[in-house]
């Protein structure tokens, strides 16, 4: 039992990654849209776990706040606003489904074919490792502090542009969704 727990602790990223994959599969395959949203929520929570385990703490928390706290709730609102029972999909799969699946599987096979050597070949022994210390300069700084320095010093202009984009998007959403009669 203890051995198993230790093993899980060492492979926490794999556990979270598989959970994310399961949530994503549920999202795609569930017939009921609410179940899809729950699968999406599960996938996003597991992704936050992934971020935490590869040492991007701030991104993990931001993922929790933005996705699990905001976007999933927004999706749930709209799913319940839109009466889905009226336009229920007859079947999950349509005429184009086999083609789509073939396309995706072909893409996956091509990817694995290209990267076979790096993933499973002899060079996998010296696989790229995530470098454990984020800091190059040797200063003792947390992940959030580092990120804020990058964001507000080096990438200030993209950050400001992003905030303008968000403002425009929110105004646009209000204009799009408001009713005809004022």
């Amino acid at each position: 039992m203890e051995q198993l727990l230790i093993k899980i602790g060492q492979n926490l990223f794999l556990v979270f990654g598989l959970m994310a994959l399961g949530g994503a599969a549920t999202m795609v395959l569930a017939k009921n849209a609410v179940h899809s949203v729950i699968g999406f929520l599960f996938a996003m929570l597991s992704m936050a776990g992934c971020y935490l385990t590869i040492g991007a703490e701030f991104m993990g928390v931001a993922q929790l706040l933005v996705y699990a706290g905001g976007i999933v709730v927004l999706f749930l609102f709209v799913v319940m606003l839109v009466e889905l029972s009226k336009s229920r999909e007859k079947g999950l799969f349509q005429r184009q489904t086999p083609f789509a699946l073939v396309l995706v599987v072909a893409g996956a096979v091509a990817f694995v074919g290209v990267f076979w050597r790096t993933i499973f070949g002899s060079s996998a022994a010296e696989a790229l490792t995530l470098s454990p210390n984020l800091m190059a300069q040797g200063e003792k700084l947390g992940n959030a502090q580092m990120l804020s320095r990058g964001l507000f010093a080096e990438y200030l202009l993209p950050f400001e542009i992003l905030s303008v984009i968000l403002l425009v998007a929110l105004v646009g959403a209000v204009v799009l969704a408001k009713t005809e009669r004022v």
Partner: protein
Amino acid sequence: MPSMNLVLLISFLLFSIGVAGVLIRRNALIILMCAELMLNAANLNLIAFARHSGTVTGQAFALMVMGLAAAEVAIGLAIVVALYRKKNTITVDEINLLKG
């Protein structure tokens, strides 16, 4: 610390599930969710490479991708709601007119 290949593999699988969802499903809401999933897979890649190079650039841009994803969801859901008001459906197969 997990190996880089594992991170890239997981993010690739998530991305392909997102692509499969966009291609298979006909519900506009679920297509939007699959697009979000693909953005997240890209984010995972960015963070993994940021960790690998030991700089903070990738994480900063992952944060920006997250903000853009929020904007995209706001606009997308507003469009879905407007479509539902006009056409009473959100099945993308039945939305085939340029004129409202």
